[in-house]
């Protein structure tokens, strides 16, 4: 395995291999309970297909909402936040 990078998930710093996708990094480092809340009912959701189809892994990356965590690789210093409800809102 290669290098690791430091990313931030919900304010906590994680050291993860630089080959990981954002979704894999979150799932394997304490984010397995949910990655977002459904904007319809607010129920918890987590990545389902891991291949860019289901859009259950949408997160906010460096301030940009609706990023597909399963096809984006981690980068040093990346800041990731759960998407709670509608993008841009805090509800």
């Amino acid at each position, binding site marked *: *395995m*290669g290098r690791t990078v430091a990313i931030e998930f919900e304010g906590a710093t994680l050291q993860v*291999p630089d*080959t*990981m*996708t954002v*979704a*894999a*990094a979150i*799932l*394997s480092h304490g984010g*397995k*309970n*949910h*990655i977002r809340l*459904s904007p*319809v*009912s607010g*129920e*918890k*959701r*987590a*990545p*389902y*297909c*891991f*291949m*860019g*189809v*289901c*859009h*259950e892994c*949408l997160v906010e990356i460096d301030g*940009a909402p*609706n990023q597909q965590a*399963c*096809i*984006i*690789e981690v980068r040093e210093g990346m800041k990731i936040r759960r998407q709670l409800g509608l993008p841009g809102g805090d509800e």
Partner: protein
Amino acid sequence: MGGQRDVIVIGAGPAGLSAATRAADLGLDVLVLDEQPAPGGQLYRNIERAGADTLQILGPDYSLGLSLVEKFRKSAAQYQAGSIVWNIEPNGNVYFSQGGRSSQVRGKFVIIAIGAMERAVPFSGWNLPGVMGVGGIDANFKSSGTVPDSPVVIAGSGPLLLLIVGHLTSLGVEISAVLDTTPIGNMVSALPQLPGALRRIDYLLKGLGMLLNVKRTGIPYHRGVTAYSAHGNGRLERVSFTAKGNIHRVESGLFLTHEGIVPRCDFTRLLGLLHRWDPVQRYWYPQTNQYGATENGVIYIAGDGAFIHGGIPAILKGALAALDIAEKLNLLPASDKADAIPRLEKELSAELAPRPFVDALYKPHQGLYNVSNETVVCRCEEVTAGDIRQAVEEGCREPNEIKALTRCGMGHCQGRMCGGALAEIIAGEFNLEPEHLRPLNIRAPVRNLSLSELSEVVLLENSDQ
């Protein structure tokens, strides 16, 4: 026409890599657009960076991709990773977004090689965290090398299911139960296809070996499972299932399901191409000729996106598409035309010999879409099977009407996850086959974009960057 490439290949999986390499080696100007960070597609995901232990666990079916990717890297094909294609026009215009910026490029030919996805079959609780597709856990392992740390329950049917059970057990993952939904009668109904399959007895033995391997592990293996559901409060806690009429329950931290794979038709639907229905495996596929050409002439489909045949056939289909396009561009040497094409066709036909048997053996069970009314079908918009049936009762019959009425298929995934189930549920209400319905319309942009990605499109010139 300065911005025009000879071929644009969409997807860097087995078919796309093979097509791009072959075309570039014949001197064609090739651009490959792929949404993943590295080449390999789903089958050979992350292969360039796989460690020796990963290669060993995933075996020769995976490491076969090493030489494919290596040849691709050595070829003159231009490769843009992290490119999300969001529109293709019938004339070969392709629009894609990379790093938040959109570009447009034109191909004399376009090869769509986006492969397959797991058939999305809704069941009660499938929207809980802790429930995933079997393919999802496979992708996660290839991408991260991590494995589940809690006991896993696996349900469904098909060769991939057995393969993943094998991988997970060699990784030391605890599997509490395997729930096999393959109808028990399939073994008999598939028998007429067996003689053809015997041409590739090696494949059959491999399948049998996988099955015996699972048996040998002593994992509780339930046959004839007709229904399953997931339960938990905000996260999966338990799986229940019906096997041979009896209801069982099992505690589980991760529930993986797999009901076969189906071609991804996003772009072929967008392009309005002809599709056909496969009554055995129950999926639509775009109509192509033996080289993957669609009736459009500019657009080709290679790999599992044309029909589910698996990895090696995808490589062969990609090469055939490349050769056919080279010929149309008068760039195919006469020797290749006489030799390479017939050789590839022969190889492909030998590879496909076991396929009708395997397809019949793993024909989806009849009750697959007997989805309970309270089950969420459209995960994005949380539309239930009951909402869909209600719309049918109110006089709707077409998926597009029901989409407009209920929002089923209107969310982020744009109906990719629920489109098939929506058609099956409606068809079930009318006692029809889904082929008699018109599937959900697909419109560009086929992916979520920001407004700037949609409004500011840079036209790429045909120059090396």
